[in-house]
């Protein structure tokens, strides 16, 4: 069985969202991830109910710099006496909102660009891949800083900028997959039957890439959460909201390090860690579910590449190479689609 057939099989294995959730739940690591994400969502939604104090209340002079106790389970800040637990609970809203909304938007844009580049090909493909090349060399964080300076520091702008520069990785992966799917028999059959391009793209190609999109989205959410925390830490997030990155910046600025207020730093850090960790877990387990031949450790390795916008690139490159090497196995030998790899 050739590698190409394996990809096609994996592509068809996607199934419904429900069956995917079931598979994740059956996987012990996946269950941990799902429970953590569920808790995170619950905390974010019920923040006003769960938070014991008003996190925006900066007038508690008598409560400044309290260590963790029964009244304040995670202590209070040194400068203004805000309750850390309440801030932590409210901060989950920002992380979750930015992470998930950016992830979903990137999924749409990346899938659209990838499918167009892969299926339509020609000038469209060339144009999209040149844009990707340009976006890849522009340093992302400085550019985001410039754009937030220009367009304002609302979360809408931040999400917009993240999406504008985050779709390249997904688009490349989807493009590679579409180049394989394009030559599969069922797409060929649809073409012969006279189906329109749009119909084939939405009915035949897109479903084949859905599992990859879902998996990539969870990993993107995790990556964006880290990036958002960094932006907020630099003081570039929305100035009116409480976020974990901003809590860390305030802690450092307020002298938490100097006065030994470890609880003020540890709480938001652990918050970021757990949120990112749980999304990553789900993404990694999803990859194992879709492709049992892939070992957990190699997907971690790819996660590093994902953070560099090169996620899964290598796998597909090797698959393309192999497919190139054995053109006899292709259903239509005259038109090897993988010849135009990422390095054309």
């Amino acid at each position, binding site marked *: 069985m050739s590698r190409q057939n394996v990809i096609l099989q994996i592509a068809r294995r996607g199934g419904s969202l429900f069956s995917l959730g079931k598979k994740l739940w059956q996987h012990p690591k996946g269950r941990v991830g799902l429970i953590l994400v569920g808790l995170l969502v619950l905390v974010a939604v019920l923040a006003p109910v769960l938070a014991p104090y008003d996190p925006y209340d900066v007038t508690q002079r008598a409560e400044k710099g309290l260590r963790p106790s029964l009244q304040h389970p995670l202590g209070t800040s040194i400068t203004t006496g805000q309750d850390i637990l309440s801030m932590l609970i409210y901060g989950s809203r920002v992380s979750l909102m930015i992470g998930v909304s950016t992830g979903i938007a990137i999924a749409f844009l990346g899938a659209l660009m990838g499918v167009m580049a892969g299926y339509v090909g020609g000038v469209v493909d060339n144009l999209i891949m*040149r844009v990707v*090349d*340009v976006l890849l*060399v*522009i*340093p992302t*964080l*400085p*550019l985001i*800083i*410039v*754009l937030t*300076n*220009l*367009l304002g520091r609302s979360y809408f702008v931040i999400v917009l900028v993240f999406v504008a520069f985050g779709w390249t990785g997904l688009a490349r992966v989807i493009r590679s997959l579409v180049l394989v799917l394009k030559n599969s028999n069922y797409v060929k059959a649809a073409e012969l039957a006279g189906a329109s391009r749009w119909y084939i793209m939405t009915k035949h190609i897109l479903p084949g890439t859905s599992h990859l999109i879902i998996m990539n989205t969870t990993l993107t959410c*995790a990556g964006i959460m*880290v990036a958002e*925390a*960094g932006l907020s*830490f*630099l003081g570039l997030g929305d100035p009116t909201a409480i976020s974990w990155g901003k809590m*860390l910046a305030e*802690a*450092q600025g307020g002298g*938490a*390090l*100097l006065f*030994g207020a*470890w609880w003020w*730093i*540890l709480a938001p*850090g652990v918050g*970021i*860690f757990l949120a*990112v*960790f749980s999304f*990553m*877990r789900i993404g*990694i387990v999803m990859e194992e579910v879709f492709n049992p031949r892939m070992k*957990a*450790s*190699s997907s*971690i*390795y790819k*996660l*590093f590449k994902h*953070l*560099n916008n*090169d996620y899964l690139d*290598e796998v597909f490159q090797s698959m393309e190479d192999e497919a190139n090497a054995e053109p006899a196995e292709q259903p239509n030998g005259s038109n090897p689609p993988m010849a135009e790899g990422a*390095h*054309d």
Partner: protein
Amino acid sequence: MKRSYVIKRILYALFIFFIVLTLNFFIPRIGVRDPAERYYPPQGAMSEIEYDIIKQFTRAQYGFDVSTFQQYIRYLRGLTRFDLGTSLRPGSPKVTELIGQRLPWTLVLSVSTLLISLVTGLLFGTLAAWKRGRWQDTTLLNASTISVALPAFFIALMLSFYLGFELELFPAYTNPNMVADFDWSWKAIQVVLNNAALPIMSMALGGIVGYSQTTRNSVIAVTNEDFVITARAKGLSHRTVLYKHVLRNAMLPLATSIGMSISGLIGGAIIIERVFNWQGMGTLFLEANSTNDYPLMMGIMLFLSAFAILANLVTELFYVILDPRVTVGDKR
């Protein structure tokens, strides 16, 4: 032909650079129509004439005194002389001058981080691959999962808290006089090393884990190749096979990931530099941002992009030269 391939790649890199520099010119201009009105709105007690003078001065400072097309031509002509424009700081220093002052300090951090994480990563990665499935390997796997989810600046804060303030091993903030007092004496170098310890540690942690994983996977992939099995069958010792056959070939993917990290070498330290107030390119950029110093910001951006393009190009060409198995897309 390899030569035509090389020329093609260089031309393509130049093409990308041209697009990037054009974008770099137009990006600040989408948000700012008139810097005078944006940054110096008219104030109550100011007469029309006074405000006109301020307006003209501000426009000249930002280079908005001629039409956009003329500005673009001026920008291109400046670039041919390696002139990235003039900063808005008092004394109007050249952007290239400011970059030149700060670049060495960022390189101190990033190059030593790269070296440390590379050497350590090679060691750990080879160990994990050699002991595949045993505790060394699983530890690396768990460390990877954890380190990806931990932002580097949080690690930096914790290190600064524990090693800097609690144990007082290293300075928790960079000595503000370090840059001014530096005179290549042994004592000054010691001060720099001491101050750089925590920033390097917090950046190297993620790097070590990353390179370990790359090395591990690459070594395992090579171990399964036929020539390694042949070498074993010939009766060569484990050690010889590891050094002479496995590691040499396993280095290739590592070379690519080094190339990738080199392009992020200068710009990647922004947040860590901020945590420790290290006077490098990152803090320069943030200073420029907080004073709306667009010429400086865009100058740094262009410099970083050019560096990334160059690093990518070199990696790509290096890879073709290094690995004889790589074909360059020529049908013959």
